[in-house]
């Protein structure tokens, strides 16, 4: 026979509908966001992986000074590769941006049409989706390029520009300032012959097993050696080194761990809220439990009975959340990535991991926390329940309070001590919510600060990267050498720039002694390095190690870098005397052919990192501020409600005795107010420590370094938002107290 208690489970949910609806709505919001994120992330990652085959993405591209003649083509064929022309022109476009226009593509890097159509007429153009969005351009608009008008007929994604890097040496891409588009062959000819980039994509006939593995690097190096003897290359970017292709793939799934940690921390808080409210229900129903236990119901049956409502509510919320995640929110979550990357179209994939992570594991967490509480609570004898004596250890005397304190103050202190578990949960909830809020609110100021500090500490206004050593007549230009090495950090490796600085440099304001190295402040901060430390870096595949003794820390917050003398550099990396790779200069170099310059790092490059990060992270940051507010409302309201319910008889008695609403509020709400406000304020230093630790831990898995500079404004805003949220919540609590009837005290509860 089914347990008659089952019917009571649904009555409990119905009777406490307000509580369960609030929790369920919060859980639905949380799980739908998490589920939508996991689904979007996995679906986009799958689309990205499949795009290599589906759109026949190149194995690399190179640029020649002119079109490849028959000899060059034969040379490529002899190296077991095929080349495909992929010419482009960089044209000035809207809002001072650069538009890279390609002729139509037929065989490699095929165009993914997202909306509209592929250009068929010579005055039509299709543009990258993200570039159009960043510059408020729509299909149907007309664009003037190089004095020629083009009608925008389609929105596209080019699979070899999933991250819109203008140059492979750029720190970051900027979707507002750089975009790509395609026109017909005739449309390309309309642009004229000037400044055409004779770019060719190549495909190996026998591709490496892993696209971004060691084989791919070796193969591309061998290929370069083979062809560079006979062909003058202006550019050479194998796919395994092409940021425009691999950056988005690396980033997809990167935030997954953060989302999982956030989800489970919130689930733990919700589970504690459930545990506290269920504990209150047990106290209220002690005599019922005592009767059931005395009648022969087992502890297990009672545990299951009280465990059922939260599990049912969470399971229902998970199912609804997953449905919303799959239907409504996955597109919103995908937009997070699509706001940064020009990804090809994707199909939603059923994701068993997402279901397990957003449904099964939260239920397990909830069950474990509630089970521990229930086992502990229900371990008392039936008699104790019948007597409503739920104290495990009878205290001999109540805590003594100084009688010099007024009775109302002592009353409030008693309420505090009586509900210390609930208040501790409120503190934890506020700490967590504040951490989320500060984290989100600090992002924009942190990125602004990064841009400002980095620009202030640029080595020179221009940092030219050359494709080959070329001399300049400009007297302000100063030679430097640079290469990139790797540092190991557990399983993660990242690039460290190694600079060779000219002795007596006018740009580098420090003296580097022979056989020692200075490191950038960013490098020192990220890896906690100090003077005298020895750092070991290695080349791309770890076949050669390079050690440097840190002799000083140079204020250079934007990049992880090591600075040594230019002669040391040549010696260390086995280069000829006089070797250099670029120039620092405060003035623009005009006497070197653009085609020989791989990149010119200017202030704009440093600020674009900040601009792009703000653009891509802004929306998500706002969402999480709301989640923080929701956590405060949920935790403070639910637990204060429990405190009020637990004391409903006492509140009713005080009403009968003649206490006014204000006086009762002063006891029960002011205590919560003081705890909440103190929690908000006390959390500030803890949040600062947590954010610092969290940020450093997070940045350790990312390339580069953003110092965790939390502006005071983020704390001020968080405090203001949290207090405002509490004030709104306290009105609901006042209403709850006012609703307690006078005859509550007349119920004969033993």
């Amino acid at each position, binding site marked *: 026979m089914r347990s008659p208690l089952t019917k009571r489970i649904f009555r409990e949910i119905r009777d406490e509908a307000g509580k369960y609806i609030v929790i369920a709505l919060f859980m639905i919001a949380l799980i739908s966001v998490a589920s939508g994120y996991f689904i979007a992330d996995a679906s986009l990652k799958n689309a990205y992986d499949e795009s290599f085959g589906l759109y026949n993405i190149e194995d690399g591209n190179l640029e020649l000074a002119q079109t490849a003649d028959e000899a060059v083509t034969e040379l490529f064929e002899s190296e077991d590769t095929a080349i495909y022309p992929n010419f482009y022109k960089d044209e000035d476009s809207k809002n001072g941006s650069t538009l890279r226009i390609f002729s139509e593509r037929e065989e490699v890097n095929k165009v993914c049409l997202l909306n509209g159509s592929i250009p068929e007429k010579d005055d039509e153009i299709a543009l990258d989706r993200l570039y159009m969005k960043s510059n408020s351009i729509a299909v149907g608009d007309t664009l003037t390029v190089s004095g020629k008008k083009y009608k925008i007929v389609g929105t596209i994604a080019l699979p070899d520009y999933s991250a819109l890097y203008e140059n492979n040496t750029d720190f970051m891409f900027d979707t507002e300032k750089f975009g790509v588009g395609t026109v017909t062959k005739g449309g390309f000819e309309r642009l004229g012959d000037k400044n055409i980039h004779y770019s060719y994509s190549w495909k190996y006939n026998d591709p490496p097993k892993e696209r971004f593995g060691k084989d791919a690097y070796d193969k591309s190096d061998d290929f370069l050696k083979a062809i560079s003897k006979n062909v003058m290359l202006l550019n050479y970017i194998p796919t395994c080194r092409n940021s425009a292709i691999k950056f988005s793939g690396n980033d997809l799934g990167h935030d997954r761990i953060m989302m999982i940690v956030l989800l489970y921390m919130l689930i733990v808080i919700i589970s504690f809220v459930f545990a506290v409210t269920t504990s209150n229900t047990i106290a209220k129903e002690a005599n019922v439990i005592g009767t059931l236990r005395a009648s022969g119901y087992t502890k297990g049956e009672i545990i299951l009975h009280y465990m059922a409502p939260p599990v049912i509510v969470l399971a229902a919320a998970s199912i609804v959340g997953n449905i919303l995640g799959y239907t409504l929110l996955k597109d919103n979550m995908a937009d997070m990535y699509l706001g940064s990357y020009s990804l090809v179209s994707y199909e939603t994939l059923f994701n068993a991991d997402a279901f397990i992570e957003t449904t099964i594991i939260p239920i397990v967490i909830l069950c474990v926390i509630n089970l521990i509480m229930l086992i502990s609570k229900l371990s008392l004898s039936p008699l104790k329940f019948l007597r409503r004596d739920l104290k495990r250890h009878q205290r001999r005397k109540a805590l003594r309070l100084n009688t010099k304190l007024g009775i109302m103050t002592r009353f409030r202190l*008693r309420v505090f001590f009586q509900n210390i578990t609930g208040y501790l949960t409120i503190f934890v909830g506020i700490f967590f919510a504040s951490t989320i809020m500060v984290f989100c609110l600090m992002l924009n100021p942190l990125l602004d600060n990064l841009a400002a500090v980095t620009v202030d500490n640029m080595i020179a206004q221009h940092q030219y990267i050359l494709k080959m050593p070329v001399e300049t007549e400009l007297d302000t230009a100063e030679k430097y050498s640079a290469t990139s090495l790797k540092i190991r950090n557990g399983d993660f490796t990242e690039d460290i720039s190694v600079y060779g600085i000219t002795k007596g440099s006018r740009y580098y304001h420090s003296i580097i002694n022979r056989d020692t190295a200075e490191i950038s402040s960013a490098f020192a901060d990220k890896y906690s390095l100090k003077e005298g430390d020895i750092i070991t870096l290695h080349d791309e595949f770890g076949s050669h190690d390079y050690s440097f003794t840190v002799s000083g820390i140079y204020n250079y917050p934007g990049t992880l870098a090591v600075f040594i003398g230019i002669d040391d550099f040549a010696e260390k990396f086995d280069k000829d005397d006089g070797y250099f790779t670029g120039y620092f200069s405060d003035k623009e170099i005009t006497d070197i052919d653009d085609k020989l310059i791989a990149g010119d790092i200017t202030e704009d490059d440093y600020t674009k990192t900040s601009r792009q990060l703000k653009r891509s992270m802004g929306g998500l940051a706002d969402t999480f501020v709301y989640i923080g507010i929701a956590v405060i409302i949920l935790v403070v309201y639910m637990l204060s409600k429990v405190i009020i319910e637990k004391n409903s008889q006492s509140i009713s008695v005080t009403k*009968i005795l003649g206490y006014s609403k204000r006086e009762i509020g002063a006891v029960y709400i002011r205590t919560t107010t003081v705890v909440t406000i103190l929690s908000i304020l006390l959390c500030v230093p803890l949040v600062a420590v947590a954010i610092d630790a969290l940020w450093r831990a997070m940045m350790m898995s990312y390339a580069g370094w953003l110092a965790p500079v939390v502006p005071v404004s983020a704390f001020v805003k968080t405090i203001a938002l949290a207090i405002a949220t509490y004030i709104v919540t306290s009105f609901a609590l006042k209403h709850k107290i006012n609703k307690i009837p006078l005859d509550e005290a*007349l119920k004969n509860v033993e």
Partner: protein
Amino acid sequence: MFIEISEIKKHFGEGESRVDVLKGINMELEKGEFCVLLGPSGSGKSTLLNIIGGIDSADSGYVSIDGEKTADMSEKALTMYRRRHLGYIFQMYNLIPNLNIKENIEVGAYLGEDPLDVDEILKTLGLYEHRHKLPNQLSGGQQQRTAIGRAIVKNPDILLCDEPTGALDYNTSKEILKLIETVNKKYGTTVIMVTHNDAIKNMADRVIKLRDGVIRKNEKNEKKLSADELDW
């Protein structure tokens, strides 16, 4: 007349489940009078007490205390009325569980304009040595004494007692009744006590018997006994 109750009617439920609990109650009490309301379960005595105490309202009729009609009072005024005039003693004590014994009495003292000395009350009630204990560390009788202390510490005009001995044994009940009698005599407090216990009527100045929402008997007790002399 200090307390005047006129044509009080009260019902619960509607339609088939409607129950007329009070069907027109009229009574008057002098200041300092000790009145016992007697009657079987469902006779309406507790409902009448709650209406007098301003924690329930009548359908019609009025309660007037020293010339002030409770029905005319706003919620705030009713709170002030209870605060100034009433002390309440419940069957199940209704002490505040997280306050110690002294603090429970201080909660009452806080409301009085000229409260009695809390330590004196504790000594009078025999609770002084228990003053730092929580209610659940005391016996039922001690808890009810605390409730009496809380009710009388503000020196109210009227003491409303709803089955104050209902949960107590014989000896403890007598102790409690003696205390209420002392309060009545020492402070001239008007006492209205609801009880099932027929023997208690003997210590009252006035005995009112209710049945089915109607006063069946309202008489002065000419042979008043002290609480000590009661037996049941």
